C-alpha cells in the first residue's frame, strides 16, 4: 500500500471519528438540556432541547458509517468465516483472496455508481430532513467518496505481490 494512500485512508477514518465525537457532544448537550428541563420544571421553568437533534444524528451518522469502510478494508476487517478454506493449498488460498478482492472492487464501484445517481435524484427532488429541513444530497458525498476510496484500497491490495 503506498504511504500516501495509507495516510489518506487513516485520515479519512479519523475524520469520521471526529464527526462521531461531534455526535457525542451534541447528544450530551441535548440530554443535559433534557435533564435540566426536568429540574427546571420544579420551578415552573422550561429548558428546550436542541431542535432537530435526531435529524442531525441521522445525517451525521450516514456520513460516518460509510467513511469507516475504506479503513476497514485496509485492515481486512470485513468478517469472514474460516471453516475449511484454511485447509486449501496456499496457491488456492491466494487465488481465492484475489477473487475476493476483485469482487470487492466491483461491488464498491457498483455502489458508488448507483449512489451517485441517488445523490443526483436527491438533489433534483429537493429531498430534505424532516425537522431541520437540511437537504439530504450533500450527505451522499462523503459516502460516494468513501466507496471510491474503498475500491482503490482493495485494488492496491490486489496489486500487492503475495
Amino acid at each position, binding site marked *: 500500500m503506498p504511504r500516501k494512500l495509507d495516510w489518506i485512508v487513516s485520515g479519512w477514518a479519523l475524520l469520521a471519528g471526529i464527526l462521531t465525537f461531534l*455526535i457525542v457532544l451534541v*447528544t450530551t448537550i441535548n440530554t443535559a438540556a433534557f435533564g435540566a428541563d426536568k429540574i427546571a420544571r420544579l420551578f415552573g421553568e422550561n429548558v428546550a432541547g436542541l431542535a432537530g437533534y435526531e435529524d442531525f444524528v441521522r445525517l451525521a451518522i450516514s456520513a460516518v458509517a*460509510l467513511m*469507516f469502510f475504506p479503513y476497514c478494508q485496509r485492515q481486512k476487517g470485513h468478517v469472514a*468465516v474460516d471453516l475449511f478454506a484454511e485447509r486449501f493449498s496456499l496457491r488456492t488460498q491466494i487465488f481465492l483472496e484475489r477473487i475476493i478482492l476483485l469482487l470487492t472492487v466491483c461491488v464498491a464501484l457498483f455502489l458508488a455508481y448507483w449512489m451517485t445517481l441517488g445523490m443526483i435524484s436527491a438533489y433534483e427532488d429537493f429531498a430534505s430532513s424532516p425537522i431541520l429541513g437540511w437537504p439530504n444530497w450533500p450527505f*451522499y458525498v462523503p459516502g460516494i467518496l468513501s466507496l471510491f476510496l474503498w475500491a482503490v484500497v482493495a485494488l492496491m491490495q490486489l496489486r500487492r505481490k503475495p
Partner: protein
Amino acid sequence: MSGEIIGILGLVVLFALLAFRIPVGLAMVLVGIGGNFALSLALPYLRFEPYLHQFKSLLWNSVANYDLSVVPLFILMGYLASNANLSRDLFQGVNAFVGKYRGGVAMSAIGACAGFGAVCGSSLATASTMGRVALPELRRMNYAPGFATGVLAAGGTLGILIPPSVALVIYAIIVEASILEMFQAAIIPGLIAVLFFIFAIAVIVRIKPSLAPEAVPMPKAERRIAIRRLIPVLLIFGSIILGLGLGLFTPTPAAGIGVFLIFVYGLYLRRFGEGLTVARIKESLLATAVTSGMIYFILFGAEVLKGFFSRAGLPEALASWAGSSSLDPISVVIVMLIALIILGCFMDSLSMILVVVPFLWPVLVEINGGDYVTAATAAFSMDLNELKIWFGILSLIVIELGLITPPVGLNVFIISALAGDVKMKETFKGVMPFFGIELVRIALILTFPAIALFVPRLLSG
C-alpha cells in the same frame, strides 16, 4: 422454477460462498443481486434492470438511521474504556474483594467481564479486552492454562447480554421491538449468567483444586489503590446501565453520555500519567472504524439479501406453512434454538441474527396467533411485543453460545491467540462446564419467561 425454490438455492449458494471465506457482507450482496437476477428470469414481473435502481438510495438509507447510531457509539465507548485502562481498574477492583477465595481471580475475571459488558456492545471486544487484562494475572497466579482461557472465553459472552449490546440493537431493529425494552429484558438473564458462572467456578475448583492455586490476599496498599480506582469506573459504568435499565434515557443518549464520561475521565487520568493520550484516542477511533465498518457492511448486505428472500416469497411460505400445521409451540422454539446452536458453530453471531432470525420470527408470530393476538389467547400466552422480547433474549443467548462451541468459536480463538501457548482444544475443554450451565439458564428462561419479561413489564406499567 418457483420463487421459493430459487430462494432456497440462494440460501445454499450463500453458505457455499461463506465456506470459501468470502466476507459475509460481500457474500450477502452478491447472493442478493444474483438471486434477484435469477428471479427475474423465472418470474418476469420481478424485472431486473429496474430492481438495480433501488441501489440509488438503499445504501444511504440503511446507514442514515438514528437507531443504528448507537452501534458506533457503543463500540467507541468500549474501546475508549479499554484504552483508558478502565478494564484493568475494574478487574483489579473486583479482585480486591473476591481475590482472597480459591478461584477468586477467575471469579473477578467473570465479574469484570460483566462490568465491562456494561459499556461494551460486543462479545468479541469484551473477550479480547478482558483477556488482555485478566489472562496475565491468571497465569501469574498459576491457574491451569485451559481453565484460565476457558473462563475468559465464557466470560466474554457476557458482553452480549449485559446491555448495551450491538446484537440486541440489531435484533430489535429486525423484529421492530423497542431497543430499550430489549436492554431492560436482558438485565436479569445477564445477572443470572454472572451468578451461574461464578457458581460454576466455585464448584470446579472444589472438585479439582489443582486448577486454581491457594489464594493469596492482595497486599493492603495495593488493595486500597484498587478499590479507589474501582469507584469512578463503577460510577460511570453504573450510570449507563442504570440510566438504560430504568429507562431514564434512550439508547443513543446513553451511548453519547457514556462516551463523553469515559472520555473526560480518561483525560483526567492523564494527570497521573495514565488515561487517554492522543495516540490512544486515535487507536480507539481506528478500532471503532474497523468494527463499525464491518457491522454496517453486514447490515447493508442483509438488507440486499432480505429484498431477495422476500421477493422469492420464502419467509411468507414458511410462515403460512407454520400457521397451517399444528406444531407444538414450545417444541418449535426448542427446535429453533437447537438449530441456532448448530448454526452458531459455523456462522458469526451478527449474520445469524440478520439472516436466520427473519425466517424464524414470522413462523413464531403465526404460531402465536398473528400480529394482534392478546396474551390471553396466544399460544405462548404473551402478546407480540413480549414474544419479541422473550425470543430475542433466548436466541441471543444461544447465538452467543456459538462463540464458545467448536469448530468455530470466535471467543475461544481470540483468547487462545492471546495466550499463545494454550492449545485451542484446551480452551474448548475449559469452556465446557460453562457451556453446560448456560443450557440450564436457557431452560430456565424457556420455562419462566418472566425472567426476561419482568423488568420491561415493571417499567412500562
